């Protein structure tokens, strides 16, 4: 389990990276945290001709909350998000530090990066699900300059995106806060890839837990582990329903009915549907109760 040969380049700036990628062509890959890429290289399932190490580029590690939402630098480590206690970030985006705890294990989180996870585009990955849930924008730098792509136009399928080989993710932009939001997932072992993951948000119109008799304006549910892309559940039927347990249960059943999950060594379709129903119900219960 030793990787195939490649050439290694270290870059110090985004323009240098883009230029280097353009020069190296399709066989080059960006190396950031390496927590997904390097295992695949050790199995020789990934065999890039060249790696461009971007981890020394200064200035790409940040969480900045402002009037236009939250911006996260591509080289921000998962652990940095997890341990973020900035009240401005927590107010409206507290979901992200909470969700970070589901990512792998502590050493993986200490090294893996936000941008790397989005670029890797695993449809069960926490950041990918939250990016879809919160309708984030991916900021890419390329030879022609920067461009911003809505995440709905970014993920193409298992591990594939619309990024060009000479583009680099520099930032994730979350335009809207989500107070009532949660992510939960299930795997047989702590830290493993989710068999099914559910990311949800509910719009109650006001902050704080729902008052008795309150209705939810809308519900958003995104599932991982059920197909090649994060799956957005059609929740139109839930708008205007009471913000209460029966609605959360109904949302779970709605999600289960819409998916056609795969079978593998971690569970078959019937079980994954049941799991989706459970996790959606639980995530919505947690989301609604958020402060």
């Amino acid at each position, binding site marked *: 389990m*030793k990787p195939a040969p490649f050439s290694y380049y270290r870059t110090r700036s985004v323009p240098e990276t883009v230029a280097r990628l353009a020069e190296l062509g399709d066989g080059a890959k960006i190396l950031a945290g390496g927590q997904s890429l390097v295992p695949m290289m050790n*199995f020789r399932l990934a065999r890039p001709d060249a790696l461009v190490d971007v981890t020394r580029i200064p200035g790409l590690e940040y969480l900045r909350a402002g009037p236009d939402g939250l911006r996260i630098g591509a080289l921000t480590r998962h652990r940095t998000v997890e341990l973020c206690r900035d009240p401005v970030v927590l107010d409206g985006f507290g979901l992200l530090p909470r969700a970070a705890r589901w990512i792998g294990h502590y050493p993986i989180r200490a090294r893996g990066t936000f941008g790397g996870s989005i670029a890797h585009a695993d449809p069960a990955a926490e950041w990918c699900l939250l990016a879809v849930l919160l309708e984030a924008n991916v900021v890419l730098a390329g030879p022609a300059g920067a461009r911003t792509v809505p995440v709905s136009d970014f993920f193409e399928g298992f591990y594939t995106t619309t990024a060009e080989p000479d583009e680099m993710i520099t930032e994730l932009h979350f335009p809207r806060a989500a107070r009532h939001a949660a992510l939960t997932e299930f795997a047989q072992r702590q830290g493993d890839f989710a068999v099914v993951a559910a990311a949800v948000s509910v719009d109650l119109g006001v902050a704080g837990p729902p008052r008795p008799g309150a209705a939810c304006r809308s519900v958003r549910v995104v599932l991982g582990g059920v197909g090649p892309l994060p799956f957005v559940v059609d929740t139109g039927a839930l708008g205007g329903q009471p913000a209460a347990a029966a609605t959360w249960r109904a949302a779970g059943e709605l999600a289960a009915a819409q998916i056609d999950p795969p079978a593998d060594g971690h569970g078959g379709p019937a*079980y994954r549907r049941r799991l989706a129903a459970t996790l959606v119900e639980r995530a919505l219960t947690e989301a609604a109760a958020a402060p």
Partner: protein
Amino acid sequence: MTWVGAPVPRTQDRRMLLGRGKFTGDLARTGTLHAAFVRSPFAAAALGSIDTSAALALPGVAAAFTAADLGDPALLAVLERPEFVPTPLPLLAIGQVRHVGEPVAVVLAEDPYTAEDAIELVGVDWSPQPVVASLAAAVAPDAARVHQQAPGNCLVDLTMFDDERLDGVFAAAPAVVTATVGSGRLAALPMEGRACLAEWDERDQQVVMHVSTQVPHQVRSAVAQAFGVPEHRVRVIAPDVGGGFGLKCVAGREEVALAGIAMRLRRPVRWVEDRQENLTASFHGHEQRYQVRAAFGPDGRILGLAAEVDCDVGAYSAFPFTCAVEPLMAVTELPGIYKVPAYRARGRAIATHKAPTAPYRGVSRPQLVLVMERVMEKAARELGLDPLAVRRRNMISPGEFPYTSCNGITYDEGSYAESLDLAEKRVTESGWPGERDRLRAGGQLAGIGYSCFSERTAYGTPTMSQRRMRMTPGYDTASVRMDPSGEVIVTTGTCGHGQGHETTFAQIVADRLGVHPGQVRLRQGDTDLASYGWGTWGSRSIVIGGGAARRAADGVAAQLRQVAARLLEANAADIELAGGAARVRGDASASVPLGELARIVHFQAHRLPEGLRYGLEARETFDPPGTFSNACHAVLVAIDPGTGEIRLRRYLVVEDCGVVINPVIVDGQVRGGVTQGVAAALLEQVRYDPDGQPGSATLMDYLAPTAAEICPIEVVHLETPSAFSETGAKGMGEGGTIGAPAAVLSAVNDALRDARPGAEIDHIPVCPWDIHAALFAPEPLAERSAG
């Protein structure tokens, strides 16, 4: 005060904690070549030509070998029974591959990266063939044969017991329960994979191998037999070994091949198994299916038992145990601690196109205990009795030892009833039933389960010879000698790999010689140092190796007493050895330090009469019939009905391994064993698809448990000393693994029954989707075999 029984800190901890352990992969030699094996991507294929020329042309590649280049070497493990079909295990495939991962060629390069580059360049002409990758496929009519000489893919078919009264017993019985119990295929998964460094020693004309093994002498025998050289031309050393659990108690084809290559190239060659090889191309175990019928009287007494056991042993017999080890143990030991009056059992080893099997921790006992505990619980339900009462009614009771069972085995004194009584008492007093009820009231499923069992350990040749292995293991030999400074060196043929033998052997010997354990040094794992021995497996080392060491220490003690008697002008019978001195019993002034005695024996031999001169040294062998330790496990599980997740809440082991040499080490063995048994019950399974392609080649798919899946494990000891053991100790390395699956499955079924009457699961591993099916399938889950 004795050292035996004291929690003496382990000698090896310090070097491991400092990062100074020396594992095979840590050893460096100038000019070492690194081996990488070309492995089959097919489960079954005929091998045509193999072209290594492109690999050899790669810079940094020094050599490449196919089977023909090495003279078609193979290992042959034989059971001398007519029902056994031998299957030679070629070191490199000869004309045919029989499982994914089977090695067909080996490349040697200056570094492991280049070696892996090179194996991609080896051209192999494969002709894929039909595959049998499950028990069902292998025994189907017209199934493809894994070996031409084995029709029906049956390598062993033994009806060991066949009580002619049994049909009548079943016909007349008030209650008959049946069960089909399946267990999944497992990987032993030591954290250090297999590894070997082989080098030629010109001065000694010997190939010297450092191998990550539990059985240095058997590896030596394997090399000698495969290459036709005398055993003294081979020296096998086991340095620090990072766990074995049975995977390393057989000879691996790769390490044996490396010895041949080192002899050929006269250069150091190294192979370090990677995890993908470890999971797909080493050895597995435990994939078994039992079909049992048991007859019971109205009072819950078992009247008869009939069993058919099929073991999926994979493609070959491992050396030296053979593939019969699982079916033989299953049919021989199935009745366990229960008094079965009439018994019939047939066991088969079925070949499949999967990696071969080796005796993984517990061998067949986790399964056969699981089967008997399922049978007891089913009978209790059928008869409306308490499951623990049914167990008590049938278990061998105090006053009945030694007990000779229907399987011909004599069980030495144990505490079967006492351990269950104590476990039940502690479970109640610790509030488990209340916790279970609270969990249920909170919307979870919850259950408490027990398992009662004994563990046959330390089988010597009197017992092993019944298997009729061509190489019959069992005895072990120790030498003890005191050096001129009064310190002690012990050699043994056992080979610890994490069990703390450096400490426990020292405790045993220190008591006999009256020295501190820190003055006793154990030398193990070196075939040039120790007499022929059988290594460490089968919970044998402390009883057999430790027993031999104790005998040898007594020999040296006798020598010391005689020398002391001479110097102190007393009778040898009046000399006691304690506190580093020999002294006359009852006379505090008459004493001489052992170091002084040792100095005189070695440096002033002329002062002693002929018979007391020339060293303090003894060599002894121990070869016991075996002894049974026993335990009762209890576990409380909670099940999340929404996800099917099963979580351990409480775990208790009441354990009796006779005299405890070192309680810290015993507790550690129990806890580690339980963890592996829980993993077998809930998490781990080696999967293959119908084409024989592995589905669990990574640790993302083979789910070894982490700390988050395991709860604290309480261990309580009873001590019923063995009369068949020098020290009174019984083996205990496997009991944790043996008892856990049955206890966990009992608890799971206790939880399921409460939620949905009739729901029951009889296979392991129990996965979350099995819980889902048991709770929500239109019909309560039917029994199914694992797979």
